[in-house]
């Protein structure tokens, strides 16, 4: 069955069996990801440029040198929206061009591309392209355009804020919390994690990254919908092609973690913050007061970074 497309004045709806999505020119990306009676997006996903500084990031001056990526992460904005039905461009702005549509538009492939600009000096650019196929699976391509004269990045990825905390998540990848320079001990396997644990470092900091992941499924029960239909646990699945991705599933954004000096200062758990990373900087460990992360685990800003993954439900397994 083909995808039904609703070209509104501000957003484009994409509907099929058991799913409906909304892409917005106003919020600059995917605004709604609704599957099996459940909304999965609390805010429109954006490119991720920052991790809550680790003790080593602070100690070796990385956080200082790369601080502008924190602002980039917080205030990145969408500067361009493009969309296609079966490769045919939908004019943006959507109105008044959308007066030519009938509400009975269908296609096999829907694509939307959002271009972002980050408030670094000079400005950095990134893109997120969504491609929705007939069964509702979404292929997401994320791209960072390398730019000279910018400091190294702590991460590059895409961050999903989900409306309520996950009950659990499962993934196939390496055991435990792993980083590019600390993953030899990670044992490949399928792991289930209850809740959204924050590794209780004395000072809250980036944590919970899982390298070399084939797929992750996030299970949520609770919804914010006031009609409160029976709350059933369903899952959203993210999977990768051959190359794998890194991810973290936490209840907090980097800035929430960054702001706390102790675990008990972290706010009550209200959301799921799922980050899918195409690049992660190592954590380092030679010392905590100056030694840099080894060179091969840096993320230079002058090189392009591209990665892609799929989003779908469990029924498409």
């Amino acid at each position, binding site marked *: 069955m083909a995808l039904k497309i609703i070209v509104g004045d501000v957003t484009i709806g994409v509907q099929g069996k058991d799913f409906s999505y909304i892409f917005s020119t106003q919020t600059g990306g995917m605004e709604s990801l609704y599957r099996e009676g459940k909304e999965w997006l609390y805010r429109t996903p954006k490119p991720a440029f920052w991790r809550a500084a*680790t*003790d*080593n990031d602070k*100690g070796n001056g990385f956080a200082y040198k790369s601080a502008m990526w924190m602002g980039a992460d917080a205030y990145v904005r969408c500067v361009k929206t493009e969309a296609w039905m079966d490769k045919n461009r939908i004019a943006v702005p959507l109105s008044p061009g959308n007066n030519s549509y009938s509400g009975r538009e269908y296609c096999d492939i829907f694509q939307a591309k959002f271009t972002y600009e980050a408030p670094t000096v000079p400005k950095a650019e990134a893109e997120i392209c969504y491609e929705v196929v007939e069964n509702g699976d979404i292929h997401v391509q994320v791209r960072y355009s390398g730019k000279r004269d910018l400091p190294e990045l702590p991460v590059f990825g895409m961050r999903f804020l989900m409306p309520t905390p996950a009950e659990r998540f499962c993934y196939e990848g390496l*055991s*435990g*919390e*792993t*980083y*590019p*320079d*600390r*993953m*030899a*001990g*990670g*044992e490949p396997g399928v792991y289930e994690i209850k809740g959204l644990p924050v*590794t*209780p*470092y*004395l*000072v809250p*900091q*980036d*944590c919970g990254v899982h390298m070399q992941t084939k797929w992750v499924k996030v299970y949520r029960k609770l919804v914010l919908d006031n009609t409160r239909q029976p709350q059933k646990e369903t899952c959203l699945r993210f999977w990768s092609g051959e190359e794998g991705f890194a991810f973290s599933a936490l209840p907090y954004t980097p800035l929430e973690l960054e702001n706390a000096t*102790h*675990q*008990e200062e972290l706010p009550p758990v209200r959301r799921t913050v799922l980050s899918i990373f195409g690049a992660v900087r*190592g*954590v*380092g*460990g*030679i*010392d*905590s007061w100056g*030694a840099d*992360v*080894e060179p091969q*685990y840096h993320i230079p800003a002058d090189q392009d970074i591209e990665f892609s993954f799929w989003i779908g439900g469990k029924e498409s397994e």
Partner: protein
Amino acid sequence: MEGATLKNELKPDIRWLDDPEVFRVMQLPAHSDHKIYASEQEADEGKSSLVQSLDGTWKFCYSGDIKKRPKDFYKEDFDTSEFDEITVPCHIEMAGYGRLHYINTMYPWEGTVYRRPAYTLASDKIEAGCFSEAADNAAGSYVRRFDLAEGLRGKRVCICFEGVEQAAYVWLNGQFVGYMEDSFTPSEFDLTPYIKDTDNVLAVEVFKRSTAAFLEDQDFFRFFGIFRSVSLYAKPELHVEDLWVMPYLHEDNKSGSLDIRIKISNRNLQASSLHMTLTDQQGQTVGERSVSLQNTEENDICFKKPGLENIIPWEHHSPYLYRLQIVLSDENGTAEVVPCEIGFRRIEIKDSIMFLNGKRLIINGVNRHEWSAESGRCITEKEMEWDIACMKKNHINAVRTCHYPDQKLWYELCDKAGIYVMSETNLESHGSWQKAGSIEPSWNVPGSVNEWKEAVLDRARTNFECFKNHPSVLFWSLGNESYAGDVLAEMNRFFKETDDLRLVHYEGVANNRKYEDRISDVESRMYAYPEDVIEYLENNPKKPYLLCEYMHDMGNSLGGMKTYMDFLDRYPMYQGGFIWDYIDQALFVEDEVTGKKVLRYGGDFDDRPSDYEFSGNGILFADRTEKPAMQEVRYYYGTKDYCG
């Protein structure tokens, strides 16, 4: 200042706190940590009728202003009804008196009191009142009333303080019995002249600061008080004062010899004898010997047992222990039984490589502070056993007792578990030469300052005397981050001249090359960058190379371990290192907002200046759960065990 050099009617003097040359007064000489029993049955059961614990509830008075401390509290008729109660062992700060304070290199009085160590900066005197009248000092006055347990009555009775921080005076029944410094080794006093069967009054006055503070500037929470166990022990008429067992393993790893030196005191001068048995783990007797003792107060006995065959060596994967049991008897039968577990192993340096039992030694180590989130450096047997199990599980084969000797039990557990120990002397004076990130040793102690020498040598001697029988101890370490000078060289000389069964380690070799040949058998570095390791090892290296601290696991860290582990394959002289460190130093407190139990670190107690979260660098969180980085440690330490 040994007891023998003092006048009988010696009176305690608070000015000893100011004098680096007074650090032990009437203290018994340091000796082996052997256990004593009244019978073989007691020894088998591990319960001694000769020992009485004084742990528990004591009367206590805290004086934040030492001028207002109850000076007469030691008198027998002093009324302690106004005193509080405190648990022994426990840090005074953890009992709620005095502010908790975490600080790293800076001396804890930074920004509060101006101080220089006596006899530095061309000074030829001590500054009277430097500690004894100082506003930042504090005192804890402890009183414990006790009756002597049955098994101790009628005998010579001594008291053993296993750890009192940082300087303390002791009285029994109103009589002064001695003074102690060196917070982390046992201090013992003879109570015999004053002890009664019942109604004894023990008084201990503990000071937070003394000249020892300059030597105990470890990167940790700064506590004071009686924080390790206190016990009484009785010497039977015949008593092993000191036991020194030297098991030698020959090149073939099968044959060996045993040298044993025993100091025995004999009070009743009856005809007496010593019987000694060496048994293996199956209980089979390997050797046996009996001798008659001379009717003198002191017997120094030396045995040499050459030609031992079919020895099973002690090492990490096979920590085979033999049991040596000494039975002293007189006309009344068995007087005292002393068991001692020993292990045969051989550590040596050949062609600048360290070998254990002929195999290249690989140190997959960790630095371990004694720590509990509930009670600071006052830790329990259960926590120690947990630590051993954790190390075994994660393939950690070595521990550096940073930066002081640990509780006695720890060494026993390491013997049994096959954990190699670098037993570090209680010395760290980095505040006297590391200043705001630069090396500035203008008033470094101990340096080459003669007046500080004996106090520091005494710490080395006590470390050696206590733990000399433990096969797990492969290294004596002179201390940590104390720069280098003649005093460190003297410590090294003491260890080298005394003990040929172990190597000597000191970290400061790279900071003052002038002393490198006189302070350490190994090139020891901390946090060396990979390129620095390579630079040393590729330029005519003189000594085997160890990282006494590496992989600083503060917060989310421990990345890049592979680079260091690969050195093991690349350089035979690179022999591993000790991760910094084992457990986060943080304390459980009740959150003032939510009432929940939470972990707090430096600076969370209004303590200033502080080094804040720098107190947490463990591969364990402070509650002893493993950090995620542990799987990396387990992986590398598990795969790089034997190589080359």
